[in-house]
């Protein structure tokens, strides 16, 4: 009896342990790819019997002579490019008394705790990883101290609010690198003080926006408490005082209006706090030369610094990335002449932007009664919206247009309404601190149009019109220092008061000069696509909608930013403002030049009509929202649309996800699957999208395989046995590098693979600066090279698809994610993203810009409904994507270049999820812009409207963490349980739905086409297969399963035998 109990107990114990082992095994296999990334393990490998890796190779610069990878050279290249990114992108805003440049050998004191711990990246999103070069090091040293300066990041305990600071990398034992810094002597006293104060005022190199913000700048008494005699150190380091003011940016949180902690002497988060002002005052005590570095991705309210005669210089530096401080040092010491221009307008009060009247938390008054659909897999509040009542007047478009109208005395532009910083009536000079595109240099430049612009209008066979204006601008260095400058071409379309809304000025294109020596000139050619000066008129053709190029006088101008360009045009128009008419040209455009509606046919030949009318609240409930109009700035100034009430049933239905009904009775025989024709994916390298081989390949697949491919969009993407593809970890974040360490490569069979034991193996490629810094370079060629380098990185880490860069436009300064998006201007954003993506494609990396579209705030980002006019959507938000996706610059007569990837927004457009918007995904993206590629949802987004998403034009879902398809992760495995339409996701779901099957086929075509253009093809031939590898965690759980299984069986048998013997004995 005694033994029976023992065996029985042990049997039960083993049963329990066996069950745990099985659960652990299933969890590990279903998430193996993610586990590999985080643990640096490799649980499977794609292998081939043939010799591959002949389609894309890294440049010789980062390879050893034998073709193996050179980690040192790769890191050196990253350092050099990040440095260039910083000195090309940093914007000199003020430079009085020749404060800058400051010669090498100078002795300086740094002020502000952020001078010791600047923002280099985002807490979440585009984080900077691994070892960095600090501002102090860049100014003072000539060799890295990577081992002691590893980027940190904060994580907040959701329950207690406690902040934990962690390093992005445990340790750096790899190479150190020599560099030529600014050569300054830096006051060590203040460095020591701030180091000590970090114990009280925690800061990290990666931080994000905060809804209740505190810049955590120490007070003067804090400083004195550490070292009462600190002022005694100033005399020895008085050549300059450099102050750093920082505002962070990151995913998932915004700054909010009035969202500041109490007692800081600031009313808004992007204003200066009293302690920051005190730090600047202290700098004035320390030196007669005060230089302020603005370390931010958003418009900081610095009018007081602009107007302060004791602040000599202001340099905006963005969040410069891991090594970007070298570039900032280059500018400070004059090795490089600054040439950046502002990515956004900087205003005296950010609340003066009309968009700020409707930013933050807004919930339908009757949401609880009317909105039954939950927040989806991602969670989040339901029934949230924002009313983008500012219309097209976003960023500088508002301020410059209102300025123009105020000068001509029209539209109540000078009214007090909307004036936040003006002492009386609305006054541009008081409202705006630094305009969009503005930037100073250590030299001066003169511009002259080199001949008349060349206008070309070509009618294409598909009915579309290509109309361009080519400007040759002679740039002359009229100063004494060599330097380069951007040549920004702006345009102004004729406006009829009360008619279609038009911005008084808009950027049309730009290029950057080379370095021009003093007295020398360079002619820079800028080609403008005139479709970007056309306006979208939703009422055209009795409400059909389309683009119009109204007949009248058009103006084009060059200028140091939008404001100067506008003033040049105004002088050309005969208005009395401070401008230069020689910097502007005019052009009469009428039907004889180009038809008014010529741009209502897209470049693909598609007729452009209203595609997202439901974006406008008034489409459902007429007259409830008034959009800002320059016809009456005061009368249409946006009110805050709080507590909107849902009354329209169609609106309510759309909010509840009623988009698509899955059919069960269609005749689907026209869609052929499983044909058995022998076509294989590896044969598709270089095959054009429209080639019939694609149809042959996809006909070979089963519907189930196609559905797997259309469902699981990565990082792990399923294979399809019928066409010879294998499950592969293919995608990763982000825009500032590929988020996989060198020694965690997903492609370890590549000849250039960095060995696990390479001393630089744990280098992580996310090192570049934030997106505004890239945009503010106004340098397309640099953006291309950085994209190309990240393409090279992707070859080293085995990632063919990048979820990035960010391509939304900045609606206002408070979006916490502005650091991941380029600019408020769609052309600047679009050009930058296009160059990046085409550069990346050089090395087979598919860049998938995100988040298409309308992610205008992080607050309630999980499904917030932004309402706007279609004109606004097309002329601002979508234009950035259009520019990048059409990629007209890279088209040739034989080849239509385009982007091959896209990530869709969490947000809705109006009441419709972007992922399920046929207008957005098919009509505009695919038909108008000709997009052919991978279009994935954001993480776990809209899993509950599976059928609607996959029939909209979206090609797949972001299913991060899921892998082991067909076995551990299946279509009916519960990931897509709980559909709002009550359907059950499985391989039978679309059996009777012709439209869905055709959509799945189209999605698979696009995904496979994107893959075929990528460096994934380096790994494919007829013999490509997957080998499971015995990693420790797999060995451990399998051993546990076997061991506990055997013991379970043994003890169970012993228990039974013991019991039976016991009974017999009785």
């Amino acid at each position, binding site marked *: *009896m005694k033994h029976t109990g023992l065996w029985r107990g042990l*049997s039960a*114990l083993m*049963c329990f342990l066996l069950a745990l082992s099985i*659960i652990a095994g299933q969890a590990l296999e279903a998430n193996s790819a993610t586990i590999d990334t985080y643990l640096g393990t490799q649980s499977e490998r794609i292998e081939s019997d043939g010799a591959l890796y002949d389609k894309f190779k890294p440049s010789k610069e980062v390879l050893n002579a034998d073709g193996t990878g050179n980690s040192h050279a790769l890191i050196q290249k990253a350092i050099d490019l990040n440095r260039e990114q910083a000195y090309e992108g940093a914007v000199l805003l003020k430079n009085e008394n020749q404060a800058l440049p400051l010669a090498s050998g100078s002795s300086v004191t740094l002020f502000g705790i952020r001078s010791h711990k600047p923002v280099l990246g985002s807490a979440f999103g585009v984080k900077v990883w691994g070892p960095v070069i600090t501002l102090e090091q860049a100014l003072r040293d000539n060799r890295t101290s990577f081992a002691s300066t590893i980027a940190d990041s904060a994580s907040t305990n959701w329950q207690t609010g406690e902040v934990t600071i962690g390093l992005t990398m445990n340790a750096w034992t790899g190479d150190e690198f020599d560099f030529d810094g600014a050569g300054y002597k830096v006051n060590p006293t203040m460095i020591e003080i701030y180091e000590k104060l970090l114990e009280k005022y925690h800061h990290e190199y990666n931080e994000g926006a905060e809804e209740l913000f505190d810049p955590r700048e120490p007070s003067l008494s804090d400083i004195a408490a550490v070292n009462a005699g600190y002022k005694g150190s100033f005399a020895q380091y008085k050549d300059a005082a450099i102050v750093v003011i920082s505002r962070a940016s990151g995913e998932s949180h915004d700054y909010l209006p009035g969202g500041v902690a109490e007692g800081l002497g600031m009313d808004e988060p992007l204003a200066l706090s009293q302690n920051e002002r005190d730090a600047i005052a202290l700098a004035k005590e320390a030196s007669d030369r005060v230089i302020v570095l603005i370390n931010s991705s958003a418009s900081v309210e610095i009018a007081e610094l602009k107007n302060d005669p004791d602040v000599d210089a202001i340099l905006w530096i963005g969040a410069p990335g891991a090594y970007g401080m070298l570039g900032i040092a280059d500018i400070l010491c004059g090795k490089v002449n600054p040439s950046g221009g502002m990515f956004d307008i900087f205003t005296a009060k950010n609340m003066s932007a009309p968009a700020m009247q409707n930013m933050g938390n807004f919930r339908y008054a009757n949401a609880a009664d009317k909105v039954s659909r939950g927040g989806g897999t991602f*969670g989040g509040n339901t029934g949230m919206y924002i009313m983008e009542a500012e219309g097209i007047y976003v960023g500088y478009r508002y301020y410059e247009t209102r300025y123009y109208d105020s000068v001509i005395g029209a539209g109540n532009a000078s009214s007090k309404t909307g004036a936040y910083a003006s002492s009386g009536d609305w006054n541009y000079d008081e409202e705006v601190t630094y305009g969009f595109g503005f930037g100073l240099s250590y030299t001066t430049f003169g511009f002259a149009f080199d001949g008349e612009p060349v206008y070309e209008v070509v009618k294409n066979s598909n009915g579309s019109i290509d109309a361009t204006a080519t400007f040759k601008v002679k740039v002359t260095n009229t100063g004494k220092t060599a330097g380069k400058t951007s040549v920004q071409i702006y345009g102004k379309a004729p406006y009829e008061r009360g008619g279609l809304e038009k911005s008084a000025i808009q950027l049309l294109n730009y290029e950057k000069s080379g370095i021009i020596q003093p007295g020398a000139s360079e002619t820079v050619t800028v080609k403008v696509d005139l479709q970007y000066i056309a306006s979208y008129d939703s009422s055209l053709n009795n409400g059909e909608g389309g683009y119009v190029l109204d007949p009248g006088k058009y103006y084009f101008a060059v200028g140091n930013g939008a404001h100067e360009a506008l003033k040049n045009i105004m002088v050309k128009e005969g208005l009395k403002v401070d401008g230069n008419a020689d910097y502007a040209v005019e052009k009469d455009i009428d039907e004889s030049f180009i038809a008014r509606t010529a741009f209502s046919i897209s470049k693909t030949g598609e007729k452009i009509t209203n595609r997202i009318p439901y974006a406008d609240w008034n489409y459902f409930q007429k007259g409830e929202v008034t959009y800002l109009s320059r016809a009456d700035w005061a009368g249409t100034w946006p009110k805050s649309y709080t507590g909107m009430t849902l009354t329209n049933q169609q609106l309510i239905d759309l909010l509840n996800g009623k988009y698509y009904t899955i059919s069960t009775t269609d005749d689907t025989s026209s869609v052929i699957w499983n044909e058995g024709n022998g076509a294989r994916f590896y044969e598709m390298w270089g095959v054009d999208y429209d080639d019939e081989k694609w149809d042959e390949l996809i006909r070979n697949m089963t519907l189930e395989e196609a559905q797997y491919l259309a469902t699981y969009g990565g990082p792990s993407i399923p294979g399809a046995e019928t066409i010879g593809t294998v499950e592969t970890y293919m995608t990763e974040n982000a825009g500032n590098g590929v988020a996989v360490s060198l020694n965690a490569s997903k492609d370890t069979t590549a000849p250039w693979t960095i060995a696990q034991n390479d001393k630089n193996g744990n280098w992580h490629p996310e090192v570049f600066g934030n997106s505004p810094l890239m945009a503010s370079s106004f340098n397309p060629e640099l953006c291309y090279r950085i994209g190309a380098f990240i393409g090279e990185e992707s070859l080293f880490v085995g990632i063919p698809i990048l979820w990035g860069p960010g391509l939304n436009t900045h609606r206002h300064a408070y979006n916490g994610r502005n650091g991941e998006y380029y600019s408020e201007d769609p052309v600047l954003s679009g050009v930058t993203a296009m160059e990046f993506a085409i550069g990346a494609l050089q090395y087979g990396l598919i860049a998938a810009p995100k988040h298409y579209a309308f992610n205008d705030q992080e607050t309630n980002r999980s499904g917030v409904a932004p309402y706007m006019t279609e004109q606004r959507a097309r002329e601002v938000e979508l234009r950035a994507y259009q520019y990048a996706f059409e990629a007209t610059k890279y088209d040739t007569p034989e080849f239509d270049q385009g982007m091959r990837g896209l990530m869709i927004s969490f947000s809705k457009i109006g009441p419709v999820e972007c992922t399920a918007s046929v207008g957005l995904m098919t009509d505009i993206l695919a038909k108008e812009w000709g997009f052919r590629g991978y279009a994935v949802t954001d993480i776990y987004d809209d899993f509950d409207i599976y059928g609607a998403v996959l029939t909209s034009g979206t090609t797949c879902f972001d299913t991060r963490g899921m892998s082991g398809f067909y076995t551990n992760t299946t279509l009916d495995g519960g990931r897509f349980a709980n559909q709002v339409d009550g359907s059950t996701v499985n391989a039978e779901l679309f059996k009777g739905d012709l439209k869905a099957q055709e959509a799945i086929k189209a999605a698979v075509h696009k995904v496979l086409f994107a893959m075929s253009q990528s460096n994934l093809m380096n790994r494919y031939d007829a013999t490509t297969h997957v080998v499971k590898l015995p990693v420790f965690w797999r060995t451990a759980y399998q051993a546990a399963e076997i061991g506990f299984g055997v013991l379970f069986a043994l003890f169970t048998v012993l228990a*039974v035998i013991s*019991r039976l013997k016991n009974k017999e004995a009785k």
Partner: protein
Amino acid sequence: MGNLLKKQHVGGWFLLIAAIAGIVGVIAMLVSNGYSSAYALKGTPMLVLMGIGSVLLCLVAMWTPTLLGNHDVVSTFAILGAVALFSAVMGSMILSRILMVAGLFSYNSQNATGWSVFYAMVVSAAAFVAADLILVIGAFLPSVRKSAAK
């Protein structure tokens, strides 16, 4: 029922506690299911049936020794079945929500609904684990008093 309880020895009481823990686990699982349709478990009715089945097996394991004596084969297999079923329900629940939980501890920490689901799920999983461990301990011990065993 009164007679059944009177006959129980220490092992039997463990089995009873395990059954109660199992009921707590099932209830907490249903609570976690109720917060949002997005986090509802696939095949919830089956999981509930498995949970109830486990509880019934615990009761069977309490009852059969009163007829067949301590550590009888039927109660042994009932205990093993209960352990397996409790584990299966718990495992299914965890596996289906592992990505949600990963999100809560990283990019999606503001998901209030998710946290409510998580709390209830933790209670449920803890109850199932407790039920399993109590069953294991109970398996070592005699379920009924010798005098009560037929």
